[in-house]
């Protein structure tokens, strides 16, 4: 996927994160990093590589396996004026620090009457493929969208990863920064200069008139491909990247869905009480027309993630199934249509191999 902004330089998703982190740390001495594995030779898949040498172990803090207390430490450090970035190699581990995130980070500014702020970033990677299974593959961002006081962002490309991370670090609130493991293989045009991708603004990535596809994180790529598949079938799909899930730019989505009359929301997470439920509910609540907007949510199957490839394959939405769902919304009476399998599989997923 190419970035909407045309520049010469192309770089990868993890490089964009590394670059943004380095820039923010150099710019603002109050930015610190904390996490497990952030100082080793892998450096969170390259995103923290070399930073401990550059900024020292006082600012790049390798931590024990103590997610709950380290999150509390980040909250306290943030209240005291620092800007911690706390990194989790899997989003599943956030379940260990929900108390600090939900009961403290999200609430401190409000419950203390605005007398403190909690400017911290929680980076969390959603795992996928190679049988990572039940506890290393969850997209749990919806749990945080439920709680007022915490922002959630899920960039779908390197350009936005850089700009959203800068925005997150400079934000005076806790921000959950969601990274999908499969995006680490993607590249896009990324300006060398620093810039922010501001909170609360979605991007229309492709114009269309028959159906609106909203794709969260890596699912945006699948939606873009689905739009190509649909084009072959004579259906014009509009594709929207919400980028920020909280605050959510529902206006852009409502406008589009109101125009196309059909909305497919595809998440890299479960649908029940998920991001897709919120986007759908917000859309139909706001829409003013008397004509029903036909909607469809897609996400993980309503099950724990199975590692075996045959089931894992069925577990996730993909471009073919998205296209077919959109087709069915547009032509509910028509015969069932199948997307061309050979065109549906995407390079970033094919190339992915091995547990890391």
């Amino acid at each position, binding site marked *: 996927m190419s970035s909407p902004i045309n520049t010469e330089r192309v770089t990868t998703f993890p490089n964009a994160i590394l670059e943004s982190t380095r820039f923010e740390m150099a710019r603002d001495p109050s930015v610190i990093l904390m996490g497990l594995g952030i100082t080793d030779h892998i450096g969170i898949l390259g995103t923290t590589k070399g930073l401990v040498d550059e900024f020292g172990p006082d600012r790049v803090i390798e931590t024990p396996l103590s997610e709950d207390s380290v999150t509390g430490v980040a909250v306290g450090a943030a209240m005291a004026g620092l800007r911690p970035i706390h990194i989790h190699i899997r989003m599943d581990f956030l379940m260990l620090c929900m108390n600090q995130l939900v009961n*403290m980070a999200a609430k401190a500014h409000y419950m203390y009457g605005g007398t403190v702020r909690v400017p911290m970033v929680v980076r969390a990677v959603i795992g996928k493929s190679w049988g990572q299974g039940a506890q290393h593959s969850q997209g749990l961002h919806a749990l945080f969208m439920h709680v007022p006081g915490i922002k959630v962002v899920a960039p779908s490309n390197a350009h936005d990863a850089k700009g959203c991370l800068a925005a997150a670090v400079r934000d005076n609130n806790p921000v959950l920064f969601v990274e999908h493991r499969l995006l680490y293989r993607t590249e896009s045009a990324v300006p060398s200069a620093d810039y922010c991708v501001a909170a609360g603004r979605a991007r229309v990535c492709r114009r269309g008139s028959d159906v609106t596809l909203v794709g969260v994180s890596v699912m945006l790529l699948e939606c873009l491909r689905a739009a190509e598949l649909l084009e072959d079938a004579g259906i014009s799909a509009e594709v929207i990247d919400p980028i920020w899930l909280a605050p959510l730019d529902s206006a852009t989505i409502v406008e589009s869905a109101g125009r196309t009359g059909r909305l497919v929301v595809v998440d890299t997470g479960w649908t029940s009480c998920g991001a897709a439920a919120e986007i759908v509910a917000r859309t139909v609540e706001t829409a003013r027309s008397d004509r029903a907007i036909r909607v469809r949510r897609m996400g993980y199957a309503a099950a724990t993630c199975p590692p075996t490839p045959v089931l894992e394959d069925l577990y996730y939405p993909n471009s073919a199934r998205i296209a077919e769902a959109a087709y069915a919304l547009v032509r509910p009476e028509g015969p069932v249509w199948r997307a061309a399998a050979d065109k549906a599989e995407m390079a970033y997923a094919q190339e992915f191999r091995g547990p890391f």
Partner: protein
Amino acid sequence: MYQATEDPAIIERIYRSLRVIRRVEEEIARLYPSDKIKSPVHLSIGQESVAVGVCDPLNGDDFASGTYRGHATYLAKGGDLNAMMAELFGKSTGCAGGKAGSMHLIDIQNGVLGASAVVGTTIPVSVGFALAFKREGKGRVVACFFGDGATEEGVFAESLNFAALHRLPVLFVCENNGYAIHAPLSARWATDRLRERVATYGIPTHFVPDSDTFVLRDVVEETLPELRSGRGPVFVECLTYRWREHVGPSEDYDGGYRTRPEAEPWLRCDPVEVAGARLEAGTRTRIDADVEDAIAAAIGFAEQSPDPDPSELLADVFAD
């Protein structure tokens, strides 16, 4: 024993602080049936010496974290009395504009970093403040208060390890009153070897078995240079006793989970009386009068303060 404890200025200061806390909470108990305070209150009556002994030697720009039983910590650290009373009354002039209630008192100006109603939550938060203070390099410290129950939460162990590993300036203060709500230690602790356990992290530990204000003050004062110098955290266990019910204004010796005879030894060495007895009668009378004036003024302030504006409901969800 330190010279300081013979210093009349310190004795006066300590007595005033104990007396303020005691009388404020007695007034809260008195007012409670009027429904003016619509917030659960966890009184520390009987336990004041822990907060006062620890906070007295701290500097104004040092910090302390409290718990939902946090009136004592807040006041001992220098939190604003008017703002506290207004907060209990739910007024816009409260320390958090009515958004904290009794359980989340905060006064950043005076080094009160907040409190949590979820037991143990402020322990790592205090460690985080200490991390920032260590980087700042000015020798500021954080006193982190928590109950015996909080030591059962895993985050306590994690926080000890983190603070010791990074040699952070935290004074961990365990207010061991023997109960978590109504459950005694014996129902919750496999052994009472808490200090020994804490020491295995390389953390120096202290024990004040009766939480005598002056002894505790000396212990803390003695550890402060070490804390400020960056040698790492220190732990103090203070045995103390809650005179009133867990939450609410009353006594509960008839609840069946404890007896008045168990309380007697503690009631006899009332920390407010112990400190008061060290003052000349005139001094004490003068301080008492001052204290009453301050409390009456605070209640008046709270009563006359306006309620928050309805627009406040959605203000400060996010910081700008």
